[in-house]
């Protein structure tokens, strides 16, 4: 069986010289200009914001929020075929305080909507929402008294169409969100959606009305 290496490591002719330079680096023999050139080739310079956004996007913790049929396909992305762990998102947290991605998988009934909103509010910034499936984005095939579309009461970042969307489609949506986070890290949802002025402040004397 032949092992074919891709071209990412440079061409084979310079391999020996690069190997020698690396050994010199490790033994501490590389100095002066050679050292500077060596380091420059291997260091990526960026701003702190971009670095943090890159890290944030690669380590999203989804919330276990399965509502209906889409939840089964969401469980499928954790399973082995479409493995969400290869992107780092397999740690589904049960507590909203520990999660930053809310995947609304399933239909949101009017009884559940305040619960969803409350859980979204309990999540800490930065937080994102994926409305998975047709029922949470619009009301899907159930255009009736009992269902409400998710973006009527909470901001949604990515809508994934499908009924239910294939696990690959949901993965595509999650990766699109990851790109958004890494490129445009405007974490505060109020800034993203122009929602300033909607803050609810509960003053100490007003509780339990």
């Amino acid at each position, binding site marked *: 069986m032949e092992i074919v290496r891709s071209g990412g490591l440079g061409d084979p002719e310079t391999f020996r010289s690069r190997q020698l330079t690396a050994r010199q680096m490790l033994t501490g023999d590389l100095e002066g200009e050679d050292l500077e050139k060596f380091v420059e080739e291997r260091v990526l310079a960026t701003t702190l914001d971009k670095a943090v956004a890159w890290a944030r996007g690669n380590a999203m913790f989804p919330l*276990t*929020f*399965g*509502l*209906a*049929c889409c*939840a*089964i*396909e969401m*469980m*499928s992305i*954790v*399973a*082995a*075929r479409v493995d969400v762990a290869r992107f780092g998102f397999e740690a589904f947290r*049960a507590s*909203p305080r520990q999660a930053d991605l809310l995947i609304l998988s*399933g*239909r949101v*009934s009017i*009884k*559940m909507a*305040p*619960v969803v909103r*409350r*859980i979204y509010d309990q999540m800490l910034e930065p937080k994102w929402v994926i409305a998975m499936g047709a*029922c949470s984005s619009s009301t899907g*095939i*159930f*255009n*009736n*008294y*009992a*269902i409400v579309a998710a973006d009527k009461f909470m901001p949604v970042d990515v809508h994934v169409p499908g*009924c*239910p969307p*294939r696990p690959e489609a949901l993965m595509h949506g999650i990766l699109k969100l990851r790109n958004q986070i890494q490129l445009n890290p405007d974490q505060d949802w109020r800034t993203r959606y122009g929602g300033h002025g909607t*803050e*609810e*402040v*509960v*003053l100490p004397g*007003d*509780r339990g*009305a």
Partner: protein
Amino acid sequence: MTDLDAITRDVPYREREASIDISAFESQEGQEELLTLNFGPHHPATHGVLRLLTVLEGEVIRDIKPIIGYVHTGIEKTCEDKAYWKVIPVVERMDYLAYYFNAMAYCSAVEQLIGLEVPKRAQYLRVIHLELNRIMSHLVWLGTSCLDLGAISMFWYCFRDRESVLDLFEMSSGQRMHPRYIQVGGVFEDIPVGWADRVRRFCEEMPTRVDQYAALLDKNEIVVQRLRDVAVVPESTLLKLGVTGPLLRASGNPWDLRKAQPYSSYEDFAFQIPVGTIGDNYDRFRVRMQEMKESVKIIAQALDGLPEGPYITDDRKYALPPRHELATSMEALIHHFKLVTEGFRVPPGEVYAPIESPRGELGCFVRSDGSAKPARVHMRDPSFVNLQAIKVMCTDTYIADFIATLAMLDPVLGGIDR
């Protein structure tokens, strides 16, 4: 700031919570410190959005009250607005793990109302898909139950097998979930070339897999300790509570509609009904594992005996004519037009058609008033009725036992809330 005052004072959701009356709980005799704990609709261990108000004395549950409706979709009302054909995808999304069964119950009811004969090949194809769905539903049950018990690796094994079943569904109908394959009068289209071989290969592999899972779990000390002798309910109580399906079979009653009131050619197949002895969680677990193997037997027999013939009824008033006829036959064109625009009309009447879904008796009541839209569709969902048994099963048990019992109850909230 005055607007904000108004907002904080006027939060109807908090008031709504106050309407649930727990004073009955608090006035129980012999009360030590009783704690009312809410297993909210968002919880990792309730299978779906089920809310349970539990009254705890230490770790022991003294009372439990399920509160449902958090995924109520108004499916039954939506069905009244759609033509009979269009109801099928709506009704499929009810019990979202047993979608072929939902469609089958509804189509059985409509076919009974019309008096339509389903061709033999279509019946066999329906049986194959229904049993594949039963295996898939039990696999998801097994995976999520073991996830609740802590045996997380079972989740991956079961979902790997689920993917094989979904591949078969995708090959026959194009969709993994909710495929609208079962139609009124038969099935949507015939199976493609090579599907039967793939199903046969699946049938050869599946019993080995189930045996592997059994080897992993059946005599596992933790599984036995957590499930043996937990939540034993006598069969008479279960019958009074209307419980059917594997829960009833685990307590010793071999009631299975596939044998008792065979529908869709189930009488042609030889299979056994696994029945438990004690009626505890361990029996429920073993019954479902064995049901998977029995389903494989049914599928193999159905494939061997699959007759040639039409896959949907020939009655053009209820099933679309094949497309090549539209070019030559005027009646076919008219039938096609009528079916696609208005849909078929069903003679007035009321019918209740029950079938055996993975969770119990799934019945569909259809009332028609002679028009092209049903006047009432009601799905008697097994989980909705089985959930009433949670109180009997979980009173005076520990919370950990309650989690295991809920897992063994196999509730699917889509069916409960509809």
